[in-house]
């Protein structure tokens, strides 16, 4: 069989019994054609075509390989097909989400004034005009962007010191005492707290301490810190744990006190991991909706004071624009604004992730010669 496929070339005895290099492509082409044919019988759709072709491809390649190369190679091909298939399945939702948000969000984002104006004074009347008369869609996300940045920044300012100091206690001073074990246990419990519960906690706390009906950006920041602190503790703890004990001992042996050792040797060595852990924790809470709705309320105008008055944020902006369109009879402009805000949010999270990588690279211990 192999000789008929490559008649022009005399093959080495060592490569006998192998599929030719083009085998996967040939099988893929055949599987695609066969798949299209089968789907045509029962009604064509792209999704079904992909699935049927993938199955045909796997069966064809594995069968051919079993016939030519033997069962070991066939199992290898089967495993490769499964691994690549799983990877594609995992990738599919991600690509789909990004594609959907891009397609729906770009019209919103390129509308003039979208990033620079708030929803203050934008009523259903303007939206109706935009749909019926072709006037530009007014209103933007400036207030929500500002709110998200302020609330997240304040939440970070609260969470990082608390989380980092807790992690330092656990790793450097805890010594597996019962206090340390209790903290570890409660941090684990806190990791699993539903975000709405964190929001209710912060709201109830401020109602009790400041007064009923207290809804400000600061309350939302406290709610987000409740969600952030366990993440920061966990990631910082792991990073501090992997600092080799030899470095601590080297510092002790030079007559350096423990707190200075932690401050000047342990933390600088772990800082890249800690910083990227913090950035990922921020990325994790920046999209929270429920805790912000119950703690900061919802605003349509710009609020620069995180400690007073209701405050908008990107997730709550998306939520309200979709659920309560500015013009109930013509929801399209609202939905366009919501998709635009969603795209901005995704870009923010991506930038944070990129920032985490950059931070990790900048702070990483140098190894150059």
């Amino acid at each position, binding site marked *: 069989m192999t000789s008929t496929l490559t008649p022009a070339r005399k093959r080495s005895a060592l490569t006998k019994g192998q599929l030719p290099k083009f085998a996967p492509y040939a099988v893929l082409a055949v599987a695609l054609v066969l798949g299209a044919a089968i789907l045509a019988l029962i009604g064509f759709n792209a999704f079904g075509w992909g699935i049927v072709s993938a199955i045909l491809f796997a069966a064809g390649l594995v069968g051919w390989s079993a016939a030519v190369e033997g069962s070991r190679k066939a199992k290898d091909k089967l495993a490769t097909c499964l691994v690549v298939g799983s990877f594609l399945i995992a990738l599919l939702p991600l690509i789909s989400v990004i594609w959907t948000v891009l397609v729906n969000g770009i019209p919103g984002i390129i509308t003039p004034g979208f990033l620079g104006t708030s929803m203050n004074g934008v009523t259903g009347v303007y939206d109706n005009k935009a749909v019926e008369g072709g006037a530009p869609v007014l209103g933007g996300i400036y207030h929500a962007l500002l709110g998200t940045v302020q609330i997240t920044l304040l939440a970070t300012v609260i969470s990082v010191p608390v989380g980092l100091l807790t992690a330092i206690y656990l790793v450097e001073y805890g*010594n*597996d005492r019962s206090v340390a074990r209790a903290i570890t246990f409660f941090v684990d419990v806190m990791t699993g707290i539903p975000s709405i519960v964190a929001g209710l906690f912060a709201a109830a706390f401020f109602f009790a301490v400041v007064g009923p009906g207290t809804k400000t950006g600061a309350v939302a920041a406290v709610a987000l810190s409740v969600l952030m602190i366990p993440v920061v503790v966990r990631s910082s703890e792991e990073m501090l744990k992997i600092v080799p004990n030899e470095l601590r001992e080297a*510092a002790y*042996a*030079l007559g350096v006190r423990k707190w200075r050792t932690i401050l000047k040797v342990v933390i600088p060595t772990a800082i890249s991991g800690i910083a990227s852990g913090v950035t990922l924790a921020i990325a994790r809470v920046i999209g929270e909706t429920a805790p912000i709705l119950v703690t900061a309320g919802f605003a349509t105008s710009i609020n620069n004071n995180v400690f007073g008055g209701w405050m908008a944020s990107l997730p709550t902006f998306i939520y309200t624009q979709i659920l309560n369109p500015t013009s109930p009879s013509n929801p399209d402009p609202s939905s366009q604004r919501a998709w635009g805000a969603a795209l901005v949010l995704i870009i923010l999270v991506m930038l944070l992730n990129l920032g985490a990588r950059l931070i990790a690279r900048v702070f990483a211990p140098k190894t150059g010669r």
Partner: protein
Amino acid sequence: MSKRIDVKDLNVYYGNFLAVEDVSINIEAKSVTAFIGPSGCGKSTFLRTLNRMHEVLPGARVEGEVLLDGDNLYGPGVDPVTVRSQIGMVFQRPNPFPTMSIRDNVLAGVKLNNQKISKGEADALVERSLQGANLWNEVKDRLEKPGSGLSGGQQQRLCIARAIAVEPQVILMDEPCSALDPISTLAVEDLINELKDQYTVVIVTHNMQQAARVSDRTAFFNIAGTGKPGKLIEFAETSTIFNNPSNKATEDYVSGRFG
């Protein structure tokens, strides 16, 4: 700038486990003392009690006295940090600080303690310490490069430079050459010979030739069996230990016979 160490009836524990039992030893100033013995016999553990590094491990404690020129290291009110600034230590694996340059590694003892030092003094200290560790000529053109970029032998000599930069009375070395090749080992051994003009040096080694080459006096530690405490078997001039030991176990060990 060197002091003697006298140990009296020292018992070393990990929690309730007695690791080293009843050691009494007199370590002379400006000499090299080697500790030899099989793995797990408590040489390193004992060495770490000489600058209070042992108690860094949770549950570790000692009973007895360690006198540095007559002052008990384990006396009430003695700050372990003061002890460690007088008795430096070099570890088995080279452990330069990865976040610091070569220069900063040498200055670590000064900088980590936030002591003020002028640039001129710092330069002089760096050069003096690196010269003392036989490393100056190899690194003088790249002092600002990271210490972790050096070879293993250079890193170990950097750690020695770091230890002598704080000007201790005594330097403890815990198998300083076990991770090094023969040439780097030779460099470190030459260095130990020079160091004894100024410092009291105590070295733990698995390499008996090394002990014979570098030390003035040698202590042989042994362990009766797993779970039993390590003991000091014999302590004498190095030539006596290797040529004419008084104890049968010592003779068996240094001649390569066991059991």
